[in-house]
């Protein structure tokens, strides 16, 4: 390669890196881990920075030697090749030195890991269960339990060609309908598990992620230093809407937390009543429409025609227009890509959405399914 060409290429590379670096100055180019708000996350951040500095220094040294050699030991500069082909001293040196560096890294890493695994002495326990595609939170000490899914506004915007600009939504894809509320200054045990496939619960500000595996209960803990809203995501591929099951943690003072707990208990009592009474068809249709929009529309589509080859049409479907029992069974237990809704939705929601489907589009069933029917089929 001629010297001129080399100069050109080097200039090109410099231009690209300047472009990257100048961009990085702007706020919209995030670069690094966030330090987080728990003792674990501080330790992890520190460890990350230490390792990053170590590999950067090693990188500068190794790449420096390579670059020096490339620039100086070239034939075009008249370099004559030496013929040495081994040196026991050098080879032992560059085996021993990396071992020492690695031991130096392993010591703080081991300490941090041991610290992270101390899940004992927790003051309260939160159980997190992954579903396709939402989270369920059980406050084991308080008996509170609810699902948390992508907020309706985000859900509308994220549909293909929705026409809604994601930039108009604050924290796009990181908003939920029911955030999980946790007290600060409390050692909280967090258990993760799943109901269908494997998910992973990750809030970067807490400093760890952990898989939620069906049939397993994983043990974790956190201790949040400061009140605030911390957002995270599912990080284990869990099917079609894996990208759309965020996590929002509201960390509040202990007093606010106590007030919130009382409110939640009252709400849960009221909801339990729904399944025990007869609903009018109008009531079911109205509720069914919103349940459909929140749970069914992304596969079966607003027009009920589904997606050819992937998601069957509900419009004109033999099951939707067939016996109620068969339809209830399918929706409760799922099939292939269709998740089981048994635990995700209550009897009233399920009855409502089926009634909606049987009365929509060109469907001919036109009957109503009562929450009691669903309850009986469980």
């Amino acid at each position, binding site marked *: 390669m001629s010297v001129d060409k080399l100069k050109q*290429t080097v200039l090109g590379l410099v231009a690209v890196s300047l472009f*990257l670096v100048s*961009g990085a100055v702007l706020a919209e180019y*995030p*670069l*690094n*881990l966030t330090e987080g708000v728990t003792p674990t996350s501080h*330790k*992890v951040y520190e460890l990350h920075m230490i*390792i990053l500095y170590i590999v950067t220094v*090693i*990188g500068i040294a190794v790449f420096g030697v*390579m670059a020096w*050699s*490339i620039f100086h*030991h070239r034939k*075009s500069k008249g*370099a004559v*090749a*030496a*013929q040495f*082909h*081994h*040196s026991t001293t*050098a*080879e032992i040196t*560059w*085996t021993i030195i990396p071992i020492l560096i690695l031991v130096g*890294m*392993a010591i703080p*890493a081991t300490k*941090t*890991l041991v610290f992270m695994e101390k899940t004992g002495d927790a003051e309260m326990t939160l159980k997190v269960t992954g579903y396709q595609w939402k989270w369920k939170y059980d406050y084991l000490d308080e008996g509170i339990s609810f699902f948390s899914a992508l907020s309706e506004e985000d859900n509308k915007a994220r549909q*293909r060609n*929705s026409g809604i600009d*994601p930039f108009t*939504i604050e*924290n796009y*894809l990181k908003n939920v309908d029911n955030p999980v509320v946790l007290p600060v200054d409390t050692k909280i045990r967090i258990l993760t598990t799943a109901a269908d*496939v*494997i998910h992973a619960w990750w809030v970067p500000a807490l*400093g*760890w*992620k*952990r*898989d939620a*595996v*069906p049939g*397993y209960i*994983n043990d974790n803990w956190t201790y949040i230093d400061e009140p605030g809203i911390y957002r995270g995501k599912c*990080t284990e*591929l869990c*099917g*079609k809407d894996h990208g*759309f099951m965020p996590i929002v943690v509201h960390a509040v003072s202990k007093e606010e937390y106590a007030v919130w707990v009382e409110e939640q208990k009252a709400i849960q009592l009221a909801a339990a009543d729904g399944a025990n009474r007869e609903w009018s068809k109008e009531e079911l249709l109205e509720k069914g429409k919103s349940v459909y929009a929140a749970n069914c529309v*992304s596969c079966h589509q607003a027009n009920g025609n589904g*997606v050819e*080859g*992937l998601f069957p049409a509900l419009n004109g479907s033999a099951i939707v227009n067939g016996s109620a029992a068969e339809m209830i069974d399918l929706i409760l237990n799922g099939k292939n*890509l269709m998740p089981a809704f048994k635990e995700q939705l209550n009897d009233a929601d399920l009855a409502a959405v089926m009634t909606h489907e049987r009365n929509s589009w060109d469907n001919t069933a036109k009957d109503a399914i009562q929450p009691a029917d669903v309850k009986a089929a469980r």
Partner: protein
Amino acid sequence: MSYAAVHEDDHHDHDHKPTGIGRWLFSTNHKDIGTMYLVFSLIMFFIGGAMAMVIRAELFQPGLQFVDPQFFNSMTTVHALVMIFGAVMPAGVGLANWMIPMMIGAPDMAMPRMNNMSFWILPFAFTLLLATFFMQGGAPAGGWTMYPPLVLQLGDGFPFLIFAVHFLGISSIMGAINIIATVFNMRAPGMTFMRLPLFVWTWIITAFLLIAAMPVLAGAVTMLLTDKFFGTAFFDAAGGGDPVLFQHVFWFFGHPEVYILVLPSFGIISQIIPTFARKPLFGYASMVYATASIAFLSFFVWAHHMFTVGMPLAGELFFMYATMAIAVPTGVKVFNWTATMWKGSMTFETPMLFAIGVLFMFTLGGFSGLMMGITPVDFQYHDTYFIVAHFHYVLVPGIVFGIISGVYYWMPKWTGHMYDEKLGKLHFWTSTISVNVLFFPMHFIGLAGMPRRIPDYSTQFTDWNMIISIGGFAFGLSQLILVWVVIKCIRGGEKATDQVWEGAHGLEFTLSSPPPFHSFTTPPEVTDATAHS
């Protein structure tokens, strides 16, 4: 026997080739089969690449513009399967087929008919896999790792996926047996093991890894198949099984697989760097031992792919230490390559440029790999774009660049023509710049919290994703230059000498360019002076 002897006598012309389609369908010739492997690999590289382009187009900006999430997941899943099993592995076997007999002084591979079969299984396997796009339930979308229970939700395509993987495994194992049999039995007189070219050494070790690892994958996917269709519950907790068991078994295959992919590339650059530095490879013996140690250790680190799954502390510590230990032999290799260049007399033809690209960018991927080996911080990195950046640095500028450097290095030998050096350099520089624009910012968005395998993302990641996509399109387009160079080189060009490169050593460069159809019909004599390029 007597008939064979008479028959043999009829063929004084050793370059007599079968003609027409039969030459390829029924080929038992290591060069023709090698060519088919390489062409197949190139086609798969573009099919997998097209899927990557779909992914980058969708991720160019937030919101869903082009594809549905399910199809997006199929793209990431099949992109990986096609690139790993269709592009990189066949390219490695193709180079082995072409070069190993020529490098050890043999006429052909030890088992030519098995060689034919192991290639011809591949098009059928990929037909099965790619046909799933047209089936009820779509193509595999649960990730190339096929974790249950998610993978069991796949529709009609499921058994096709499993059988495709079985076929690929059978093909790889046959290829591996053939390479081992060839190297162990057909070396020329004087070609002792410690005189073998490094490329041959890395391939023997790779072949042993294949034989050890591929049956494990076959077992794992067979258990998936029986779980789905025959009522077993290996991976179903409700039936007394264990979904995490699959991950352990899969990664027991999966980590050696990483080295199956990378070791041939290490071998290639170990041939190229000495040639263009005009200096013998530094630390030949330690290179062999380091490669063997890496391969051996690769069986004890699998769980670092699944630190977040929930393991006992002792397990996490063991796999962390074992993973860190791999950095030592890998470091030795990098230092040896650097020492080979040191005080050499280097020129920078295209193969050397790509080899130096491997040296720099594989090392970069090694650094992020070391970072992720540290369990407590991996809890943050795991399943974010940081890991995507890491394994693409290792796989693309680490492995694919290695394969490309090998293609440039040996192409004049194969075709008898020099390739177009200007175009080669253009290919290198466009690829290198775009590959870094493509993969480097992924470190940043990964650390900042963007998970992998998502079709849509929060708006703060937009700017980096646009840059990444532009890098991706540029990298994809740059590879068209390679096709152009290869076609041009096959059709003609400056006549290549037998030695091709001023500093080239090794038996393959004692043959004519292009070499005779049956490589060495009389075995050459190898001495210490002619060995060790």
